[in-house]
């Protein structure tokens, strides 16, 4: 295209800025020194080995995985319902209601955390547990799920479902034979995205987790012990790798969904 020299350079520099932390992370994870500083002193796998021995961390990991799986399921289910309603039906105050559902996307997370803490503890008298975190994470993940699923449902021509019924299928079998296969890529990427968000989320979890910390909350605790920081780096490397793999899979399914529906690719998530 046209003279893109300077802008191209800037774009590359910007990408380096974006990726700097992720590139630096594994350097220290494999660095044979307890001090997080340059110069690097040598290669080691000790930090990863040490990871396997910390029981509290394993508990936090299990807790986080449970929360992330439940969050992914709940927010995707809610997302399907909302996206389906938003793309198929018109109801009064539709724009307002959809706006309200999408609001957590821009609310400061601490506000969400504090509100939910107050609601859960002061009003419902619920004890803090994995379930309060799941509720909060579902709240913040649902807008992302709706955004992804909306695209999936919008790309679905209503005439396709009518055609299936016209050709003799019942509404139930139409959903199974036509609707589901066409939106399943969207559902998979919605599940993966909400799983990733929940797994990494700290601010809200910190407020709402009871005496069973999630993995990020546990990591936050470790920051106070300088000796443990290389272990955190190792753990972080694994987490980042897992996140990137999950996202790549989500992106793959999103594109496949577009290809299946015969649509042009118009952009990424959101």
């Amino acid at each position, binding site marked *: 295209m046209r003279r893109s020299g300077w*802008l*191209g350079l800037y774009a590359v520099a910007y990408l380096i800025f974006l990726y700097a*932390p992720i590139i630096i992370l594994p350097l220290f994870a494999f660095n044979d020194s307890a001090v997080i500083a*340059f110069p690097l002193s040598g290669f080691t796998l000790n930090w990863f080995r040490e990871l396997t021995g910390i029981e509290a961390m394993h508990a936090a990991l299990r807790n986080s995985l449970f929360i992330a799986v439940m969050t992914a399921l709940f927010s995707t289910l809610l997302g399907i319902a909302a996206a389906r309603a938003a793309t198929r039906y018109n109801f009064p105050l539709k724009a307002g209601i959809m706006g309200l559902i999408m609001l957590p996307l821009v609310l400061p997370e*601490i506000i969400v955390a504090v*509100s939910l803490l*107050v609601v859960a503890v002061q009003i419902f008298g619920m004890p803090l547990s994995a379930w309060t975190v799941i509720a909060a994470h579902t709240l913040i993940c649902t807008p992302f799920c709706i955004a992804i699923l909306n695209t999936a449902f919008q790309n679905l021509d209503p005439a396709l479902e009518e055609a299936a019924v016209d050709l003799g299928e019942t509404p139930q079998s139409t959903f199974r034979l036509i609707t589901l296969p066409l939106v399943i890529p969207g559902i998979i990427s919605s599940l993966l995205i909400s799983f990733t968000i929940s797994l990494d989320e700290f601010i809200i979890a910190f407020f709402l987790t009871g005496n069973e910390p999630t993995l990020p909350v546990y990591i936050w605790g470790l920051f106070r012990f300088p000796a443990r920081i290389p272990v955190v780096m190792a753990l972080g490397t694994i987490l980042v790798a897992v996140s990137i793999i999950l*996202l790549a899979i989500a992106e793959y399914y999103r*594109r496949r969904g577009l290809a299946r529906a015969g649509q042009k690719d118009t952009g990424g998530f959101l």
Partner: protein
Amino acid sequence: MFSFWTQDFLSLDTTPTLNNYREFLAEPLYQELLRRSLIIAGSVTVVTVLLAFPIAYYVSFYVRPERKSLWLFLITIPFWTSYLIRVFLWRVILGFDGVVNTALMNLGLINEPLTFILYNPNAVVITLAHAFAPFAILPIFVALERIDRSLLEASRDLGENAFNTFRRVTLPLAMPGVVASVLIVFIPTIGDYVTPRLVGGPEGLMIANMIQTQFLRLNNAPLGAALAVIAMLSVTLISLAFIWLTRKYLRAR
């Protein structure tokens, strides 16, 4: 959400409630924190959006269509990886014997480590500009994508040069995207307490840190809630004022 919120607040204070607000007014520390938070959030917004605009412009106008989604994917990846770890790594990068200082000293550009880049508001701005990058890029990108390319050709055809075309056609049409990214960066920034805690030092602490402290350390949830309400109100007012000003400005042209 607001009414929802206020109700929560009222229901936990069964006795008269204005005391907490009075305390906010009486204690200069809180006001100072709020003022500082708004200034930091404002700087973060300006820096992030200024840095983001050229990227969005580049991807929208110069990247080949089939490569665009790859670029967007690359831009969003860091955003999805553990926030906590990313912020911590900025401490590593900006620190006393961190990456930046080591590199600059090895290159002989500086003799002693720079200290103005960590444990102060600058560090908070850099880190948050990083964290909210995709939030700022995507709305601007979407707005730029919507611009009919023949409008730009029409402008050139009518005698404007490239720069004036950008100023008189591209920029006004991209404004809705810019407004969206300003809001989408500014509002959540106020609520962050991880970054100030990890890289901000004593001068970089923000209102959210105080809310967190009130809730979890001092067990003064009502005061924390009052602070949260005040923070939220200030953010909303500023956002509304901003939207109003841009609308007025755009209409005036």
